[in-house]
C-alpha cells in the first residue's frame, strides 16, 4: 500500500492535514486578503466580532484581529518549522554520533544531552530569549535548544539498534566509510520516528512561543498568535475575542499537527499496519 493510502485510513489525520493546508494557505495569502500592516490601527478599538467591519473584532488599539491571525499564521508556522528543523538537525547529529560510535563518545554526548535535560526547559528557553533579546531568531534558537535532546535520544536509540543490523555490517565488510554508513544507510531507516517526533515538535514549538509571548518575551515587531494572546490577555474579561480567536488558531493548528503526526505514525508503524 502506498504511504498515502495508509495515511488516509486515519480519518482524523486527513482532517488534520486539511486544517493544516488551510492554515498554510491562509498564511501564504495573508497579504492578499489583509494587505495592510496587521499592526495598523484599522478602526474603532475593541469592536466585537462582526462590528465596524471587523470579522473577528478589533483589539484595544483598533487592530484587526482577523488580519493578525492571518499574518500571525506565517510567524507561528515559521517558528514551529524552523525551530523543529534546527532541533532535529542538532538532535540527529548528536544522536547519530552517540549511537553509532557508542562507548566513550556516546557517554560524553549523552551526558551533554542529559545536562540539557536537567535544566528546566521552559526556564531555559526564557533565559535564552532574555539573553539574546526577544526576536524571532532568538525564539527559534531557544525553542530548538530546549527541544533537541528528545530527538538526540530517539536517534541514538535507533542508531544503537540499527548499527548492529546485518545490512549495516554488510556495509562494513564492503569497507564503506563511517560517514557514508551513517548518512546513507542508517539515517534513512530511522527517519520515520524522527518525522513523527518532528511533527509533534512543531506543535510544541508553537505552544512554547505563545507561552513566551504570554510572559512578554515575544518579538514586538512581528505579528504572531502568541503576540496577539499576550497583548490580549488582559482584555480576556472585557473583549474575549482578542485573545480567544488566536487561541483557537493555536489550538486548531496544534490539534491538526498532532493528528497528522499520529497519522504518519500509524502509516509508518508496521505493527499498526495490519490493524484498522
Amino acid at each position, binding site marked *: 500500500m502506498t504511504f498515502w493510502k495508509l495515511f488516509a485510513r486515519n480519518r482524523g489525520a486527513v482532517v488534520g492535514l486539511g486544517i493544516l493546508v488551510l492554515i498554510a494557505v491562509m498564511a501564504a495569502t495573508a497579504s492578499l486578503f489583509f494587505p495592510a500592516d496587521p*499592526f495598523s490601527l484599522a478602526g474603532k478599538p475593541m469592536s466585537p466580532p462582526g462590528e465596524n467591519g471587523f470579522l473577528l473584532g478589533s483589539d*484595544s*488599539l483598533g487592530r484587526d484581529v482577523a488580519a493578525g491571525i492571518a499574518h500571525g499564521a506565517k510567524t507561528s508556522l515559521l517558528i514551529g518549522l524552523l525551530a523543529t528543523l534546527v532541533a532535529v538537525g542538532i538532535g540527529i547529529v548528536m544522536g547519530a554520533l552517540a549511537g553509532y560510535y557508542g562507548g566513550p563518545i556516546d557517554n560524553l554526548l549523552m551526558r551533554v544531552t542529559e545536562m540539557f535535560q536537567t535544566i528546566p526547559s521552559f526556564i531555559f528557553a526564557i533565559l535564552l530569549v532574555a539573553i539574546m*533579546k526577544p526576536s524571532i531568531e532568538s525564539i527559534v534558537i531557544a525553542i530548538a535548544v530546549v527541544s533537541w535532546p528528545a530527538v538526540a535520544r530517539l536517534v541514538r536509540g535507533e542508531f544503537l539498534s540499527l548499527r548492529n543490523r546485518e545490512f549495516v555490517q554488510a556495509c562494513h565488510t564492503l569497507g564503506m566509510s563511517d560517514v557514508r554508513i551513517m548518512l546513507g544507510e542508517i539515517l534513512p531507516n530511522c527517519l520515520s520516528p524522527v518525522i513523527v517526533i518532528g511533527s509533534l515538535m512543531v506543535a510544541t514549538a508553537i505552544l512554547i512561543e505563545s507561552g513566551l509571548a504570554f510572559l512578554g518575551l515575544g518579538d514586538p515587531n512581528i505579528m504572531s498568535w502568541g503576540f496577539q494572546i*499576550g*497583548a490580549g490577555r*488582559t*482584555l480576556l474579561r*472585557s473583549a474575549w475575542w482578542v485573545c480567544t480567536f488566536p487561541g483557537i488558531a493555536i489550538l486548531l493548528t496544534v490539534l491538526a499537527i498532532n493528528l497528522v503526526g499520529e497519522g504518519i505514525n500509524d502509516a509508518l508503524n508496521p505493527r499498526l499496519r495490519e490493524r484498522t
Partner: protein
Amino acid sequence: QEAGGTLVYIVQPEPPSLASFLSTSGPIGLVAPKIYEGLFDYDNDLKIVPALAESYEVSADGKTVTFTLRQGVTWHDGAPFTSADVAFSVMEVLKQVHPRGPNSFREVTSIDTPDEHTAVFNLANPAPYMLRALSSYESPMVPKHLLEGTDLRNSDLATSPVGTGPYKFVEWKKGQYIRLDKNEAYWQDGMPYLDRLVGRFIPDASTRTAAMENGEVMYGAYGAIPNIDAVRLRDTDGFSVTTDGYSMINPMALIEFNTTKPPFDNPAVRKAVSLAIDREFLIENIWFGYGKPATSALSSNFAAVGLYKEGMPNYPKNADVAGAIALLDAAGIMPDANGVRATATLDLIPYGEDWRRAGEYMKQALAEIGIAIELRYEDVPTWLKRIYADYDFDFNVNYFYQLSDPVLGVHRHYGTDQIRQGTHFVNSSRYSNPELDALLAAGAQEADATKRAEIYGQVQEILAEDMPVANLFEMQFLTVYNDKLKEHATSAMGAYGSFDRAWVEQ
C-alpha cells in the same frame, strides 16, 4: 468605624526588601510606610499633617527649621523614639544611603538635639521643598539603637523592619505575602482599626483582578488592577476606583530622546514626534481614559503651587500630523522613495504591557510622518544598562515621578549636572543647556513664590522648544478597592500611606 478584621491588599511586584531608607522602590512603599513613620504626613490637599513631629518652625532667614517631636512614641521593640533617632535618620541614613535623600536634605548641615523631643535642622541655604519630603515614604525615621554601627546596606531591618508605625512586621513569606499585625502600643489612641494587614503578591494581572472580584483582596494600587479591569470594576457593585492618593508622586509619561545622535539630535525632529503623537488616543485606548494630556514640561498639578505655566507650544492633545511634517520639511528632513524620513529604534520600558501597547501605537503614529521605527523590548537590567549606562538608544518611552516639587522630580532630566553615566533615571538625553542650568539652580533656592514661578515659566518655555524629553501625559494611577474598605485614602501618599485609619465593614 468598626475595629478589627484583616485587610488583604495587593503588593505587586514583591518588594526586594523593606528597607525604605535604602530604596524608593514602589512595592517597598506599599508596605514600609505602615511600619515606619515620617515626621509629617500630607493630606489630599498636600497640607502638612503632623506625624512624628507635632509642629515645626522655620526661622526668618529660612536656615533653621525646628521640629517639636511627639512624646510617648515607642519603637515596635519598646525603645522610646527621640530626637536622636531623627538626627541619626537624616544625617547618617537618609543623607548617606537613600536614593533621593542627598537631594532632599542637601542643604542640611547638621541637626541639633537640645532635648529628646526637639530636633533643630541647620541649613546652608533655605530649602522650602524639604518640608514636602518628610513623609514616611520619602524620609522614614529609623531606629538609631538598631542601626547605629551596623552596615546600613546589609541590615537585618531590611527583612524584618522595626518602626514606630501603626503596624508591626510579623512575617514575610517570599513569593506569597507580608503580614503586619496591629501595633497595640501605637501613639494614636484606638488606632489602627485593623487587626492585621496582609500584602499579597500576585504576579498575573488578570488573576489580581479575579482575586479582587472574588473578595480575596480588597485593595490594589499603582496599576495592580489593569485599567481595563478597573473600568469594568468601577461599574460593578461593591467596587470603586479612585485616583486620589497620588498627588505627591505626580507621575508623567514621556519620551526620552538621545540628543547626541541622529535623528533626535535635531530639535525639529523631537518636536515633530511630540506633535505626531495623539495623546488622547494613548489615554483613551491604552489607559482607558485615565490620564491628562501633558501640556508642558511640568505637570499641571504644579498649578496649585503656581509653578505650572499654561499655553506651551508643541504639546498638542491630538496629533498634528501636518504640523509635524511641516516642521520636518522646514528642517530639511525629506522623505526617501519609500516615504521614510528617518529611522530609529524605540526602546520600550519593561514595566508592563501598557507601555508595549504605547510603543506599538507610536510606531504606527510616527510612520505617518515618515519616521520608521523598530521596537525593542528587553528585560529590566538590560534596558537600564542600555539607557543609563551605555546610552545606546535612539529614544525610549518611559515615565517619571515629578514628585511634589520640580527640584525633586523634574530637574533630574535636564540639568547638565544630571548627566551621570551609570545612574538610573537621570538625564539620559544628555541634554545640556547652560542657560537652563542657571535657571534650575536659581529655581531650587528661590523662596519667593512669584519669582520662582517666573523662573519655572522660563524653564518650561525653553523645554517646549528644545524638547529633550517629550512629555506625553500626566498619568493617573488607579486604586481599585472593595467598598467594604473605608478610609484608606486619607493621606496624600495614598497607597504609600500608613492605613492607620482604614477599617473594614464586617
